[in-house]
């Protein structure tokens, strides 16, 4: 008998709470509106870059400290990176201040819309406006159609999006530009006014669209840029306090474009300019002062690569063993050494830290799964990693040359990595230089005992009878 009132009370509390929170949310949603939105979608390569400029206006009464971005659920899985910045100053003295962006949930999201929350530096008080610059990267969002092409055909793809920006806010005026790699556009959905000029497709301007307006568009166009996808990349950075940093990178590369159909003709490939959708060259940007670069795979050296060095950076141009057509795969391995003093530093508290670049050195590639292993020298303690975005972390132990206790390995894992993730990260650890002497001393003592044993053997008489 007592359970019922308590349950009723709980229900009541819940209802009040949820209605309150809804009120709070919707109040902030209704407070804001977007005065002007401009979206530029760059589909020239398989990595789609979307630049979004939002002029946000607070029409409510209370200050607002966060702005929401909405994405359809099909698109949100393909977002590799999302950055936002606020513009400060006028035309000439314009500067951008990066803002924090976090994924968030709303209770009444229509059709499973996903949200990202941009935290403003200063709350936007009533009547004020702010200009936000948002850049987000989409991967695996171009669908090849036809899905299978022969060697001589060029590759056509679909891009799906909405002509009207999906937003939880009321948008006064908006325009969307889609830039295609060539003028060859098979078809596109018209949502008037729609104009096409050269390689640019313009949707809009649309005026006074309510929140959550959506108008799907489909663009079918030619895209022969290399669809280079690294399905798995394992980078291993091994620190040796004897003065070198050894990096080994294992790649599983695939062509994610339209699948190759029929036979491959080498004569056509080399003679005529067929196989436009395939790719042969890859460019890896390595740090300056690399040495002992190697490029090989399981069955030996791959003898087609060029290395160009200057004092700022190193360009390694590699060719897989065979040109990659749609659906084809290749694995290879790149390794190089770097001088330690460029990357290893001592922090004020006496700990050491490695400052190295996250991401994949190959230009214009998507990495589906990146595993970065930092192998610390034997005897180092309390490792900790500082990475500018969320990654999965765990520790491993690796046994390398003459190790006794093994080396601590900091493993960082991230999915869907694009070139925008090539930013520095740090791994801190404490290390006693005495450990550097362990292995040489071990070798010295082994040889010493070997010689002592042979001296002893030569001087001792082992025979049974005299």
């Amino acid at each position: 008998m007592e359970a019922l009132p308590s349950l009723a009370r709980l229900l009541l509390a819940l209802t009040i709470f949820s209605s309150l929170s809804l009120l709070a949310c919707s109040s902030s949603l209704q407070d804001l509106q977007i005065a002007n939105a401009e979206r530029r979608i760059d589909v020239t390569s398989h990595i789609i870059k979307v630049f979004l400029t939002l002029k946000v206006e607070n029409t409510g009464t209370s200050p607002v400290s966060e702005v929401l971005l909405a994405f359809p659920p099909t698109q949100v899985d393909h977002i590799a990176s999302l950055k936002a910045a606020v513009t400060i100053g006028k035309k000439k003295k314009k500067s951008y201040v990066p803002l924090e962006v976090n994924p968030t949930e709303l209770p009444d999201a229509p059709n499973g819309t996903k949200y990202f929350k941009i935290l403003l530096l200063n709350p936007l008080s009533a009547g004020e406006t702010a200009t936000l610059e948002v850049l987000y990267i989409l991967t695996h969002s171009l669908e090849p159609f036809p899905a299978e092409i022969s060697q001589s055909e060029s590759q056509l793809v679909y891009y799906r999006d909405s002509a009207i920006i999906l937003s939880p806010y009321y948008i006064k005026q908006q325009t969307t530009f889609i830039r295609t790699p060539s003028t060859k556009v098979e078809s596109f959905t018209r949502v008037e006014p729609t104009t096409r000029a050269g390689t640019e497709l313009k949707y809009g301007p649309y005026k006074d669209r309510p929140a959550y307006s959506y108008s799907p568009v489909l663009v079918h166009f030619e895209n022969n840029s290399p669809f280079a996808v690294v399905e798995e990349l394992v980078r291993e950075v091994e620190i040796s306090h004897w003065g070198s940093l050894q990096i080994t990178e294992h790649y599983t590369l695939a062509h994610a474009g339209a699948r190759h159909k029929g036979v491959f003709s080498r004569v056509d490939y080399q003679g005529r300019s067929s196989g436009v959708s395939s790719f042969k060259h890859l460019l890896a940007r390595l740090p300056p002062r690399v040495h002992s670069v190697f490029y090989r795979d399981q069955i030996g050296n791959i003898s087609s690569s060029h290395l160009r060095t200057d004092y700022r950076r190193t360009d390694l141009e590699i060719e897989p063993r065979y040109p990659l057509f749609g659906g084809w795969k290749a694995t290879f391995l790149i390794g190089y050494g770097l001088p330690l003093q460029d990357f290893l530093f001592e922090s004020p508290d006496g700990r050491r830290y490695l400052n190295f670049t996250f991401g994949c050195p190959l230009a214009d590639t998507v990495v589906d799964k990146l595993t970065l292993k930092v192998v610390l020298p034997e005897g180092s303690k309390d490792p900790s990693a500082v990475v500018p975005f969320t990654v999965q972390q765990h520790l491993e132990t690796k046994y390398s040359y003459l190790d006794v206790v093994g080396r601590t390995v900091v493993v960082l894992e991230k999915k869907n990595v694009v070139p925008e993730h090539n930013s520095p990260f740090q791994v801190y650890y404490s290390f006693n230089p005495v450990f550097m002497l362990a292995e040489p001393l071990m070798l010295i003592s082994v040889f010493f005992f070997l010689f002592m044993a042979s001296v002893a053997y030569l001087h001792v008489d082992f025979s049974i009878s005299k």
Partner: protein
Amino acid sequence: MEGSETSNGTTLRNAFGNVLSFFILILIGVLAFSIRLFSVIKYESVIHEFDPYFNYRVTQFLTKNGIYDFWNWFDDRTWYPLGRVIGGTVYPGLTLTAGTLWWLLNSLNIPLSVETICVFTAPIFSAFTSWAAYLLTREVKGAGAGLTAAALIAMVPSYISRSVAGSYDNEAVAIFALVFTFYLYIKTLNTGSLFYATLNALAYFYMVCSWGGYTFIINLIPMHVLMCIVVLGTLLAALVPVVGFNAVMTSEHFASFLVFIIIHVVAFVHYIKGVLAPKMFKVAVTLVLSIGVIVCCAVIAVLVALVASSPTKGWSGRSLSLLDPTYASKYIPIIASVSEHQPPTWPSYFMDINVLAFLVPAGIIVRFQSSNRMLFTLSDASSFVILYIVTSVYFSGVMVRLMLVLAPAACITSGIALSEAFEVFTRSIKFQLPGLQGISPVKAEETSSDSTVPLNEVPKTDKSGETLKERPSRKNRKKEKEPVEKPSIKARIEKKLLVLPLEGSVLAIFLLVLLGAFYVVHCVWAAAEAYSAPSIVLTSHSHDGLHVFDDFREAYAWLSHNTEVDDKVASWWDYGYQTTAMANRTVIVDNNTWNNTHIATVGTAMSSPERLLGKFSTHWM
């Protein structure tokens, strides 16, 4: 050390000589290893050719799955749809050696890949071979000749051709096993020690594990007679699955058993002779002989019937083609079609063993001559070496491939010849220049090392007899050494009269050094240019630099990444092994020749017009 206290000076000189020869041996090992690295430097660290890829794949399997799985391995990736029992049809010596090396290094946390180990197995073992050749020649002639032979074998082109880095084939370890078995055999002969006999049997076992060429040993040694190796060795040989009961069944092994029986009969007769009175002995002889002859006739009749009933007379095809060079081309064209089974041409002798071809006869003469000095008979060791060189010259004449067996023999005899020549010339110089006593002047690196050591030979071997552990056998050694010491003193007095003119000796030494230099230049050239190509990568020089043709691996890599795992590759003979190893796909035929019908079918399919191919493909699918 306390034994040879003849004078302080000699001990010091012995010690110096020992240390010097030790360092020379280490340098020879380094030389043998590094001359084979041309392939790695000019090309890359990769497995060469065809068979090595199979061995590499087997080694990978061994390191991954352990020895028991390896022993029972049925490989369904080759000879589709037949498959192949790998564990029972390979010589496991090489694989086990590399597998053990890998395991050892990895247990010390030295993470070298299986491929690296396989690439460098052959150079490592050629260093071992040169040390084994040193030991063998030291037993036959002396330390000086040993060092010369070791230096020669370290860079003999014939051996280099089969043991450059990456040439991961049976011969790589088998030549070491061969030379080492011979060394232990002669050591056993010289010492009579059971310890060495057992070691010998083990070395023979290793040889059987490694290469089909073990039949050479088992036939050569019986010609030279020793029992221990036959009994123990055969039992151990029977343990290797490829050999199996062939060890007692095929005619190739008859020589050893025949000798074994004869030895026992002779020993038994001697024993009876000692036990019985002369008269009784005569009676017994007639009795035994009459029974024996009957039994023998019966046994021989049975054997002949058995042997005659089998089509190849109990001999395997390859061996028959050795004894009768025309056999293969008549009956087994598939063996004859392999180029390495063809008889060599004269230039290939010069290419492969170079100046050694001229030095070998000199070496043989030296052996006869030195034997003549003592009791006008060949010593056991010398006669063995002569037998070895004569048989191997014959075999190499039949098959190019067996040039490899000739190479160590040629090196050993030429080493003996060279060292003897240097000894004679330096001695005659020394006697004519009374001012120069003791250590002869240093003329060239080679001359000094070769000439100083032979002078120390007698005391030195004595000392090593002290320090080595077979003290019980020392008496035997002493006995054997005594005749050497006495004649050498006599010979020294005689030699005073037999000196050659000074100018002549100097000139001759100069010419010999020149000859050696020519040999070295030729060997380095052969190693760098002729034998280092891995044959999966081709290069060509053109006006705009080096061109690399890497098409084979391009195809294999494509196959391995872009076809289904259980796809079948209709490969032809040559590249079957490479396809299974590099592309990891099932092949229909590979380089192994165990089913001629299958090869013939694939051959027909490949030479048929395209429209008929469907018939064959249904045959296999």
